Structures are given as structure tokens and as C-alpha cells.
């Protein structure tokens, strides 16, 4: 029951008293209304804009958010109101739905934003009123098509492990995927053009030879044309057979329009081969040659515009049908009238009604050949009415067809624009940079954290201040989370550049090196572990991880690297307790599958006298 009429329910129940005297048995008891809630005003605060309504208004639709107890989750105790952090403009139409029972779609809103709001408030979009439903559905369909186009582009990536058949089919359908496909595409296009030109030139009169009269070129150079034709047909046959082989569903392929055109294009040749030189059927054979012109339709595989045109005509079939029907009606009417009008005049060309058809068609389409003209006054009057009405009848359905064509064409253009690789690439690249920004932030903050600790030792205040970045609470919590993950998996996050380097180094590190080796790209040759001010109860950071941290740091900031390195070196020299030689100077390797192999290196070096807050050697 439409709850909009809930207001009339008391009235309907009261009117039931009219049945009482008629009834012969007692009435059932009425349900008691125990919840004697007084109708109260509810305040809804949506992003600062306050809406107020009666509670009963909201209760009309109990299966939505506002009508059920779900809104209690949004109740704000101090302000005694319900707070929703949503768009207040869209909320207007949603609240109006409760008030009037009709949901309207505001045209200036984005369709997906509107959909989201509807979903949030638990309202199904199907109840949008008739006044707005068409618009809503149209916009939704457009949006969906756009999303689908996007997805299709992504699917264009090469899938691994495709069979030959699948590769071939993909090559046929999307020529831009591989060079072979492109070559094939252009070759077939070329041969179609050749074939069509041959057909045309065949009929041109070639000039007279001494012993023959003026004859078309086709009959003069029969052999040449025959060879050309054979070549083209061979190419077309091969192409057709290849497509047939590669098609995922052969039956469906054979039924498709393009394949029928292919068959019709090459069949006349074979039929001609089979029944050659039989005079009786040569007439039919000549007719078959007409079908060779269908080869020109093969161009529609090569031209998007042709395809769109064909699709438009198909989708405007009803308009075209209407046009044809109304034209036929008008032609018959006017032809009849003209025939009877011109019956009187002598030597009139309007010999019969069908003969008048020709005049009517020529007049209505404003061609006006002039081979048939009315001579009587009545004929002229009706002739002029005929031409005027012809203009109108033809002009009416044409805009519909044109707008259809324009819509489909623009859709295709949009799809093509997005398919252009560059646009997609730059957009994806920007998105990637934004996303990796956060990953980089983590890495940067990690080594800043290390720098912090290092510099705290050196005691340079300014540097410390410089390096204390104001990372927000959110960021620091996020970094902490990533850090925990690192600890859990005993792996660390690195950026791509680093990762590739390390892959190289992995290869280089295939032989263990006990000598201090400085790898080529200025990778860290310092073994030193992270500084520790106190022997800590914290989770011991594995030496390798710290190494890798330093490694990162050194590669990220080269100048600082030198500074630090010099510092460390100084310290090392000062302290001279750190055995930074003797196997300790190894290139840090981030990929950690082999910590055990390196550990013995470490163990070899005794950790005597851990320098205060400097290098610790951990095993």
C-alpha cells in the first residue's frame, strides 16, 4: 500500500462503520495502538544544513535508513540531532521523497554520486517518479557504456599463453596489436581497392583496334584482367579461410554479415570457373558478375565510419520504415490524382497510374526531371501540392536518423580517444605516481628516522631540526603499520630502482667476498649497523635490515651519504674499535634470503668493546 495515503487510513477505518449494520456477525477487535508516541519534530543535520521534519513523515518508509532504527547510529547526543556527513543538495530530493512519496532525479547531479546517496539511504532507484525515470535511465546507461569502454581498453593487454588460433583471431579483429596484423590489414585493403578498380576499368571502352570495333577494355585485355581477378580472389579466399579457422565460434562467424559479404564477393569467380563458355547460362553468368561489386563492402572492415553508418541504419530501422511507408502512401495518392487530372489532355504521358508513379516520385523528391509534366490546370495545381508535401514528408524523419548517427558517432569517437595509448598511459602514470607517493613517503621517513638517530649522536642541532619533519599522526601511524609488517615478514620495502640494483648485485654476489669491496654504483660499503644509544630491550633489528636501511639511505641522498660516511669513518677511526674491516665491509644486500650466509661473516668479527652509541655488531 502506498504509504502516501497513510494519512487517509483513519478515515477509511472510520468509514467502515458503514458496514456494521449490514454485517450479520460481530466484528473483530481493533488492534491497540500502544505506542502512543506524540508526533515530534526531528532535526536532521546534513553537513551543516539543517532539515526538520515530523517523525511520522520519516516513518512512512520503514525499510529505508531514515525510516528505521538505523538512523540511531547517527544520533548526536549533545546536539540532540541526527548528523549525516553527506551531500546536502542530494539530501533535499531524498527528503522530498519522504514528504511527497515521489523521488525525483535532479538533472544537474552526477549520476554515480546520486546513486551512491540513494544506496546510502537505502532507497531503491526504481521508485523514481515517471517524470524523471527516463532521464535517470538514460544517464545511467551512458555511464555504464563509458565504464565498459574503459574496461575493454584494459583488456587489450596481451594475455599470456594464447593459442595460435586465438592470436590470429585477435590479430584479425584488432590490427593495431601486432605488426603482422597491420601488414595483413593493409595488404587486404590494397587488394580490395585493386579488385574494385579492375571491375570498373573493365567496362571502359578502350579505343578501337584495326580489326575490332570499339570495345571495353575487359574484352581487349582479357588475359590481364583475368589474372588480376584470379590474384584478388585467391587473396580473398585465403583471408576468408584463415578467418574461418581462427574464429572462436565458426557457426556464428559464418552467419555474420561480413563473412556473407566475403562469400558473395568471391563466389561469382568460382561459379564462373565451373560453368565456363556455356552459351545458355552465360546470361546468368553476366548477372553474377554484378555481385563482384560487393567487394567494396569489404572495406567496412577497414573503415570505422562505414560501420557506424551501417549500425545507424540498422538502429533507425523504424524511422526508415515510417519514411518509406508514408512516402508510398503519398505516392499512390498523388499518382492517382494526377492520372485522373491529366486524363483529359491529349498526348499525355500519364498513361496509367503506375506510369504516374514515376512523376510523383520525381516530384516529391524535388528531382524534377521534366520528362513528364502536367498540362492541365488541375494537374498543375495538384502537381505543386505534390512537390510541397514531398519536401515535408521527407524532411520529417531525417533529423531523427541524423541524431542517432551523431550519438553513435560521438560514442565511438570517445572510445577511440581513450583507446589512444598516450592518454591512457599518462593518466595511469599520474595515478601511479600519486599512489607510490605514499610508499615513497614511508621509505623516506624511514631513512629520515635513521638520520635523526645518527645526527642525534653527532649533536648537530640544526640538522636535527631540519630533519624532524612534521609527519602527521595519520602518516606516522601508517608508517608504523608498514614497519610492523616489515618486522613480521623479515623483509623490507624498497623502491623499484633499488630492487633492480639489488637483483644485479645478487648476481654479482654469487661468490662470497671477504674483502672489502665497493660495488660499482656507490652502494654502501659500510657495514655499520644502525646506531643504538642503549642496549635496548627493543626487538633487535637484524643487522642485515639495518644495513639495508643504510643502503637505502645512501642511495637516496648522495651528498648526505658522503657526509655521513665521513662521519662514520671519522668515528671509525676515532673509535678504532669497530672492526669495520675484516669481512665487515660487505655490500649490503637487500634481498634477504641469505642472512645465514652472511651471518658467519659477522660472527667472525668479535664484538669487543661496543663503542658507546656506535656500531654494534649483532649476530
Amino acid at each position, binding site marked *: 500500500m502506498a504509504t502516501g495515503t497513510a494519512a487517509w487510513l483513519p478515515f477509511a477505518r472510520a468509514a467502515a462503520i458503514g458496514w*456494521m*449494520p449490514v454485517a450479520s456477525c460481530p466484528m473483530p477487535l481493533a488492534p491497540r495502538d500502544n505506542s502512543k508516541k506524540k508526533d515530534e519534530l526531528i532535526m536532521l543535520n546534513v553537513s551543516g544544513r539543517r532539515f526538520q521534519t515530523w517523525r511520522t513523515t520519516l516513518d512512512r518508509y520503514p525499510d529505508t535508513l531514515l525510516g528505521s532504527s538505523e538512523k540511531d547510529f547517527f544520533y548526536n547526543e549533545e546536539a540532540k540531532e541526527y548528523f549525516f556527513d553527506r551531500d546536502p543538495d542530494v539530501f533535499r530530493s531524498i527528503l522530498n521523497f519522504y514528504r511527497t512519496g515521489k523521488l525525483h532525479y535532479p538533472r544537474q547531479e552526477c549520476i554515480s554520486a546520486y546513486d551512491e546517496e540513494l544506496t546510502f539511504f537505502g532507497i531503491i532507484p526504481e521508485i523514481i517518479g515517471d517524470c524523471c525515470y527516463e532521464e535517470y535511465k538514460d544517464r545511467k546507461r551512458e555511464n555504464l557504456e563509458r565504464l565498459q569502454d574503459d574496461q575493454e581498453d584494459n583488456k587489450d593487454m596481451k594475455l599470456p599463453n594464447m593459442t595460435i588460433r586465438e592470436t590470429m583471431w585477435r590479430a584479425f579483429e584488432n590490427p593495431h596489436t601486432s605488426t603482422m596484423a597491420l601488414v595483413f590489414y593493409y595488404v587486404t585493403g590494397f587488394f580490395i581497392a585493386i579488385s574494385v578498380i579492375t571491375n570498373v576499368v573493365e567496362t571502359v571502352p578502350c579505343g578501337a583496334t584495326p580489326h575490332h570495333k570499339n570495345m571495353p577494355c575487359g574484352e581487349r585485355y582479357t588475359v590481364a584482367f583475368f589474372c588480376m581477378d584470379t590474384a584478388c580472389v585467391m587473396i580473398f579466399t585465403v583471408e576468408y579461410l584463415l578467418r574461418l579457422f581462427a574464429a572462436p565460434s565458426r557457426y556464428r562467424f559464418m552467419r555474420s554479415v561480413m563473412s556473407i559479404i566475403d562469400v558473395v564477393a568471391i563466389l561469382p569467380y568460382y561459379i564462373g570457373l565451373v560453368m565456363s563458355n556455356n552459351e545458355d547460362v552465360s546470361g546468368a553468368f553476366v548477372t553474377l558478375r554484378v555481385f563482384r561489386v560487393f567487394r567494396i563492402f569489404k572495406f567496412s572492415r577497414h573503415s570505422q565510419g562505414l560501420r557506424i553508418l551501417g549500425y545507424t541504419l540498422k538502429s533507425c530501422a523504424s524511422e526508415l520504415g515510417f519514411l518509406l511507408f508514408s512516402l508510398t502512401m503519398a505516392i499512390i495518392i498523388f499518382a492517382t490524382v494526377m492520372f485522373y487530372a491529366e*486524363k483529359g*489532355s491529349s498526348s499525355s504521358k500519364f498513361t496509367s497510374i503506375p506510369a504516374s508513379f514515376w512523376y510523383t516520385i520525381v516530384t516529391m523528391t524535388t528531382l524534377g526531371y521534366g520528362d513528364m509534366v502536367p498540362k492541365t490546370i*488541375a494537374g498543375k495545381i495538384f502537381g505543386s501540392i505534390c512537390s510541397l508535401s514531398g519536401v515535408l514528408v521527407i524532411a520529417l524523419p531525417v533529423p531523427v536518423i541524423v541524431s542517432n548517427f551523431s550519438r553513435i558517432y560521438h560514442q565511438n569517437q570517445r572510445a577511440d580517444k581513450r583507446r589512444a595509448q598516450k592518454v591512457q598511459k599518462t593518466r595511469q602514470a599520474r595515478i601511479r605516481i600519486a599512489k607510490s607517493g605514499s610508499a615513497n613517503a614511508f621509505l623516506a621517513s624511514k631513512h629520515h628516522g635513521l638520520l635523526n638517530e645518527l645526527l642525534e649522536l653527532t649533536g648537530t642541532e640544526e640538522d636535527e631540526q631540519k630533519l624532524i619533519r612534521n609527519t602527521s599522526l595519520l602518516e606516522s601511524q601508517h608508517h608504523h603499520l608498514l614497519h610492523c609488517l616489515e618486522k613480521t615478514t623479515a623483509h623490507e620495502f624498497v623502491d623499484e630502482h633499488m630492487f633492480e640494483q639489488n637483483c644485479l648485485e645478487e648476481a654479482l654476489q654469487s661468490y662470497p667476498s671477504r674483502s672489502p669491496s665497493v660495488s660499482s654504483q656507490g652502494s654502501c660499503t659500510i657495514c655499520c649497523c644502525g646506531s643504538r644509544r642503549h642496549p635496548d630491550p627493543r626487538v633487535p633489528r637484524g643487522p642485515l635490515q639495518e644495513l639495508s636501511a643504510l643502503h637505502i639511505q645512501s642511495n637516496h641522498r648522495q651528498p648526505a651519504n658522503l657526509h655521513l660516511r665521513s662521519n662514520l669513518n671519522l668515528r671509525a677511526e676515532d673509535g678504532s674499535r669497530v672492526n669495520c674491516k675484516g669481512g665487515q665491509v660487505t655490500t649490503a644486500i637487500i634481498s634477504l634470503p641469505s642472512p645465514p650466509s652472511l651471518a658467519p661473516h659477522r660472527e667472525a668479527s668479535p664484538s669487543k668493546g661496543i663503542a658507546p652509541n656506535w656500531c654494534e655488531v649483532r649476530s
Partner: protein
Amino acid sequence: MLSVIWETEGLQTVGIVLLVFASIKLLHMLGLISFSEDSIEDELELSTVRHRPEGLEQLEAQTRFSRKELQILYRGFKNECPSGVVNEDTFKEIYAQFFPQGDASTYAHFLFNAFDTDHNGSLSFEDFVMGLSILLRGTVQEKLNWAFNLYDINKDGYITKEEMLDIMKAIYDMMGKCTYPVLKEETPRQHVEVFFQKMDKNKDGVVTIDEFIDCCQNDENIMRSMHIFENVL
């Protein structure tokens, strides 16, 4: 020969007549000439009837509802009918929503006539609220009076068998087709017979208001059912 001449002449005439008519129509469309005088009045559309009810105090005095109840009633009424009046079609639509299975239009028609006390074809808020006041807060006498008024279709003070049959059919129509036990053709008629047997004391074929009220007051079932809908508001 003559027929040929006739044909051409005739067609010529037809052509000329057609032309003349077309030009007259064109001029008429352009507004340069007009044929009848009431074309101007056709321009004035029927403006929607708007109705404002009497003041709250007056309604409070005339009905047995409290101020708050009147407020609630009016808000609901105005929400459904922003123009302030209900015409019969809207009324039928609204009432039909409560009985989706059957056809409530006939009964709604009778109801409309019963509520529309001033018989002006539309139900204003005062009519609505007065009717409700009687039905919900009135005495048993008033309620029975109202019911009699409902049954008496032509408002002549007597309920005839035909009137009762119409009402009965209307009530059964609201049930629709799918009932158990299956509704038969003569069920309303039988029901009317039973009713008349009970009500028509002097067996004169009509029920007057006194017979009606007397009989109902003596019937326990009816008396009990009169109080059922009292707490509707």
C-alpha cells in the same frame, strides 16, 4: 467526351476549393481571422479550485476534535490534496488503494456522497472533518444516522430494496474475485433479504430511519461493533 470534360472540370473545381480552404485555415491558424466569439473564452482555462478551510477555532467548536488532532488531520489531508479539495476521482483512487483486490469505486462513490453534505461535487476539509467527527466521536444515534444516510442513496428518507442491493453489491465488489468460499451471483441479494427481514418491521418494503435505529439498537452485535473504531485517531 462529355464525361471527359466533366472529369477535368470537376477536378479543377476540387483543386480550387481545396486551395481556398487551405488558405482560410492558414489565416485562422495565424490568428488573423476568428470564427466564433467564444474562442476567447476557450483561452481561459479552468483554474484549479483552491479552498481554504475555516479557522481552527471554528472547526474546533463545530467538531469534537481537539486542536492538535485537527492539526494532524489537516496536515495529512493537505499533503494528499494540496489544493484543499478532493474531487470524486481522487477520492476513488485513494480509497481504492486500501482495497487492492477488489473494485472499490462504487462504494467510494456512495461514501463520497455521504461525506459531501453540501453536494457540491467536491470534498473539502470541513466535510471531511465533520464526517470523521461523527464517526469517531459521535453518539451511537449519530453514527446510526450517518449509516442510514449512507444507505439512502437518493436521500428521500427510505431505504428501498434496490438501494440496499446497490450498496450490498458495492461492498461485495470490494472483496474481488478471489474469495473463500467463492462468491456467487445471488449472495448480495440473499444478504439484502436477510437485512430487510431484520430491519423492516412493518414489512412495507422500505426501511425508515426509525425502524433502522430501533433495530440496530436492539442488536447486540451491531452495538458492540459501533465502538470498535473509536480509538482510530
